[in-house]
Each structure stands twice: as C-alpha cells, then as structure tokens.
C-alpha cells in the first residue's frame, strides 16, 4: 500500500497532469523518427492526449526489434505492420491477405467498419487489443522486365521475399517463382543490382530506395495491389480501458484521409510510363488465383500455412462483392 502511494506520488511529481495516463509505444518506421509514419503516429498521440492518454513514442527502424521490445515488456504498446501484428491479433493481422483488397475504396469501407464500437470484440485477442489501423499503401510488384505482367510469366523468376512473410512465400512458390529470402534492409539492393527479377513493396520504395534503378528501361510497376499494408497500434489488453481503446480506434480512423494523402503523393512519384497496366481479363484471372490461395491459407490446406483469419476473409469478401456484385467470386460455391 505504502509502495503504491509512493509510486503514485512519484508519478504526480514527474508529470504535471497526473490525470493523463502514460503509455509507452515502440513505433516502427523505416526511417525512424524523421519518417512520414512516425510523424503520423505523433499526430495520433497528440489527438489521444485529448482523451487522457499520454503516449510516449520511441522510434525503431527495425520492426523485428520493435516487436521484440514490446514482447519483452519494454513498451506498453507497439505500432508495426500488419504482418508482424498477426501473432497479437490474427483477425486484423489478416488485412494484408494477398489480393484481398483491390481498391482503396474497399480499404476505406473495411477500416470504417472496424472502427465501429460493434467491432470492439474483434479487436481483442490473446490478451492484446488493437488501438488503431492506418493504411501505409498497397504493395505492388516491381519487375525488371515489363513482359512479366501475368502470373505465368513469374515462373522461374527470382523474387525478393520477406523471410518472415509466410503467405508471400507460399504465393511465390505457387506461381513457381524462386524465393530469394530477404529483409526490408536488403531487398531493394537485390532488385537494383539484378540479383532478383522482381520484388514487392509499397510505392514509397520507388523513390526512397531507388527501385527505379532496378526497373531500368525495360521494367515497371504492375498496377495491381498485391496486398494492402497497414500500420497497426496494439497494446496489452489491460493498458487501456475499453472505452478509451474504442476512442483510440476512432481517432486512428479519423486520420484515414491524412494517411491516404501521403500514400497518393508517394504513388504519384512513380511516373505514368512506369506503371504496367494489365488487361481486365487478366485481372479477373489474378483475382481468382489470389482467392484460391487465400482459401488455402485460411484453411491451412495443400501445404499452405494457416495464417488468415476466416472472419476477416469473410468480411473482405463481403466488401468486394458489395462494390462489385457481378464478380465471379460472389456466386462461387466456396465463397470466403
């Protein structure tokens, strides 16, 4: 009891506003505290201060280390990409499922849906709670030869693949391309020096990591979102009460236009001529291929890893069919 009140007094002395709850957050951004997304989380933190939570942010340029520190209890919350969030919440960690969100409008619908109070139970899993989801941009396929514009063309091609991204590895194997294990720090170099033929990344990488060098005169960026990457804020469940956690998710959702503004700018930095537009009939083929893979990775069959949450796959399918009811998948027998 005495110890508790001493701690409380120490807290009062340390902060002039004892009413604001202090929560430490490890924040991943490829370029640290001067990165676009770290700055974005700063805005989120400021907004949350108005709701009584004082986030203390710490930048990390290595996502694995950020997650490690969160696991080790060095921070109460973490902001990292969807793929790394999967162990804490398989449902929201499945947002980046391959080809599951073909447009930013679909993504908008999804994030609006998840920000509703009704979705709160889905945000808790395993003793952790998701405090907000922010888009980082779609992942695109970068190729060193424009003729690699169909899944068939990928066969035999070397592809830089994040070694911890099980679903991507499965997809690369599925299209009979060769997995070249990589991480965020070296995939661009491999693409630029020609040791791989293709890589996938958000538009941000085109300029910052000089992927145009790997693209050269012959290559391009395939204009079809392979997956939607999101940054998710996750905390241990006991850190925030339910009402505040819901507020946090609404705050993050309220920042959607700001994030999209950033993404649109990054995509606009890719010159028009560098985009590889693919014909509508090919897109339909792609969609079916992705869908079959998602089902495999939802059910963990045919040697696929069991990584996608069935409820998220169902919700995403509903969203796609609401915006495009004539798609074949909407009447398929094995709808997600």
């Amino acid at each position, binding site marked *: 009891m005495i110890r508790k009140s001493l701690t409380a007094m120490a807290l009062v002395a340390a902060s*002039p*506003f004892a009413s*604001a709850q202090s929560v430490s957050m490890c924040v991943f951004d490829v*370029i*640290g*505290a*001067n*990165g*676009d997304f770290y*700055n*974005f989380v*700063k*805005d989120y933190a*400021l907004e949350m*201060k*108005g709701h009584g939570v004082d986030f203390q942010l*710490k*930048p*990390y*340029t290595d996502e694995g280390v950020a997650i490690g520190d969160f696991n080790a209890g060095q921070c109460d919350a973490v902001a990292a990409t969807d793929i790394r969030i999967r162990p804490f919440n398989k449902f929201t960690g499945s947002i980046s499922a391959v080809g599951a969100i073909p447009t930013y409008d679909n993504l908008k619908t999804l994030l609006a849906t998840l920000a509703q109070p009704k979705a709160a139970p889905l945000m808790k899993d395993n003793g952790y709670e998701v405090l907000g989801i922010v888009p980082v941009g779609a992942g695109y396929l970068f190729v060193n030869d424009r003729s690699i514009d169909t899944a068939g063309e990928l066969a035999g091609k070397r592809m830089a693949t994040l070694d911890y991204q099980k679903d991507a590895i499965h997809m690369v194997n599925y299209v009979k391309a060769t997995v070249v294990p990589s991480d965020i*720090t*070296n995939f*661009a*170099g491999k693409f*630029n020096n020609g040791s791989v033929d293709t890589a996938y990344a958000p538009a941000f990488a085109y*300029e*910052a*990591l*000089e992927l145009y*060098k790997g693209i050269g005169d012959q290559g391009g960026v395939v204009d079809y979102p392979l997956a939607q990457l999101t940054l998710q804020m996750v905390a241990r469940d006991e850190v925030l009460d339910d009402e505040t956690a819901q507020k946090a998710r609404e705050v993050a959702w309220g920042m959607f236009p*700001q994030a999209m503004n*950033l993404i649109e*700018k990054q995509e606009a*930095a890719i010159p028009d001529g560098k985009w590889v537009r693919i014909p509508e009939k090919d897109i339909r083929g792609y969609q079916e291929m992705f869908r079959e893979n998602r089902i495999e990775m939802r059910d963990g069959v045919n040697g696929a890893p069991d990584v996608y949450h069935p409820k998220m796959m169902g919700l995403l399918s509903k969203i796609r069919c609401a915006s495009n009811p004539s798609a074949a998948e909407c009447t398929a027998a094995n709808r997600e």
Partner: protein
Amino acid sequence: MISTLVTFSRRISVAPLKLLTAGALILLAGCSANPIYTTTGVVLSNYSEGEATPYVLQMSDPKMACALGEGIDPLLYSFSRVTDAPDSTGSLLMLLAGNCAEYKAWEAELAYLRADYQGNVEAAKDAREEAKRLNALTAKRRYASFQRAMAAYEFDPSVEPVECPFLFSEQDELTFLLGLLTGMQAIVNDANSGAMAGVPKNIAPQAERAATCLDNEKWGGMPNAIRALVWLLLPDTRPALSPDPWQVLEHSTELGAEKGMRVPHALQAVAAETFGRPEKLEEAIASFVEANATIDVWDEYRLVDEVAAGVIRFSSDKHWSANYGYRTPQTYFGKMSPERETENVETMSLDGLL
C-alpha cells in the same frame, strides 16, 4: 488646359529621343535583355561569389546571415533572367533563407512540446500545425538550394557511377558539400511537414555517393558523417566492409572538432533523434559543449560552426521542453536533466562559529 498642352508638346519632343535610345540599346544588346542589367548581373554575381560570400561565411551571427539570404536571394537570383543563373551564390543564399524558415519552425516545435508537456492539447495542436507549415517552407527552400548547388557545378546526382564535379576552389568544395547536406535536411523537414513539400527521397542515396567526391579529412569529417547518416537510413547503401555508422559519426565529430567545424556533431544528434538513441544524443550534445573550451573555430567558415551550434542547441531544447517543459537553461547546456552538481560538495563544520 494650358498645362495639358505643355505636357503634350513635351511628350512629342521627347518621344523621338526615347525611340533613338531604345533603338541603340536594342542594337547594343542584340535582341536580348538590357545590357546594363546583364553587366550588373555579372558584376553582382562575381562580387557575391568573390567578396560577399567569404565575408558572410566568416560571420558569427546565423540569424543576421539568414535574414541576408531571405532579403538578397530574390534580387540576386532575378539576374538569372538576364544572364547565367548565379547558382553557387544562389544555393548559399537559399540555404540561408531555409535556415530562417527553420528557426521559426523550431520555435513552433518547442511551443508544441511545451504545450504538450502542460497537457494543453489545443495549443499543442496549433503549434504542431504551425511547425509543419514552416517545415514545408524550409523543405522547399532547401530543396531549391540543393538543386542550385548541383546545377552550379553541372553535377548530375543521379548518374552512376558518380562523376565528380570540377571544384576549382575551397569555396566551391564547401558550397557543393553544403548543398548535399542541405538536400538531406530537406528530406527531414519534408517528413516533419507531413510530406507537404514533396521533396524526392532519393536525394539521400545520391548525397551518399556524391559525398565521396570530397576530402573527408580536409572537411572535418563532414563527408563521411553525411554518408554514415545515409547508411543508417538506408542500410542498402552501406558498402561492404565499411565501419559501423555510429563509429563513423563519432570519429567524424573528433575530426570536426580538430578542424573547427562541428557539423558532424549536429549530424550525430540528428541521427540519435531519428533512431531513438538517447545515449548518443547526450554524447553528441555533451561533446559539442566540451569542445567549446578547446576548439579553434575555422575562422573562414565560422558561420558553418555557428549554424551547427544552433542545431545542437535545438536538439537539447527539444529534449528539455519535452521532459521538463522549458528549454535548456544556459548553465545546463550539455546536460540532459536539471540535476544540480551542488549536492555532494564537501562542507565545513560550522560548530565552532555558532
């Protein structure tokens, strides 16, 4: 009525004279601009480069220098309409103008941190928004400065392998080097603006390559400090067998202090903030302050050291404002907390006196 007639008759008599003069000028100048303007432009450009720039680089008042940049840049650079663009001086003037915008952005940032510390969310938001706008302005000016510095030496930073520019004088070398540094700063400012300025991020790897064109020892570790910062940001750019970037930064601060130009300290502080390394930040600030006692500032380029001092002081002020709600008290510059050193001092017994 009469006065109108007089004016009219005057106009008639003056008109042929004006026509003649205009004709002569056109002949003199071919069909291009006014020759007096062209000559003035050449004279001013040469004067700026030969006299004004060395003078300004020796100044010890960065705020006055930045005001000069804001005030003179539009005038001097307007001569690019009548003669070759005065890019080398133009890049330095725009660099100074960028500093002016940044000083305002710093104040807004500190106001945000103070308000945040006090829990005044509205004031914090307002100040942060102000800081973002000013960062965007700074980023735009710095990007322009970078572009001019590259144009001045006909250097294309995107060409690989890098083709080093011809830098005839020491001042050229410094202008080029500062151009690279300013380009890097533009990226940081743009990120802090919420990407309002749209500065291309590939400046960072380009600057890394171009920095190899300069003598690291001669320039007090500045070129390698730039490279090390980029290696940290983009690990892909780090050559095989190169030393740890943090070590390079530390070594660069030593070289910088020896040469009397502490830019590497400022880069070390920026890196420490970017990568969330408080111990490195403390080290950078403390060693900058310690060097005050021993350093012999490179007189010809005193301004560069002063600008770096401003960056270090701002880093310290940010830390103090975020953690204590006020900027660094003068006697605490070099320390990260208000712990006094007056607690464990030996005292004498007063028993015999009482």
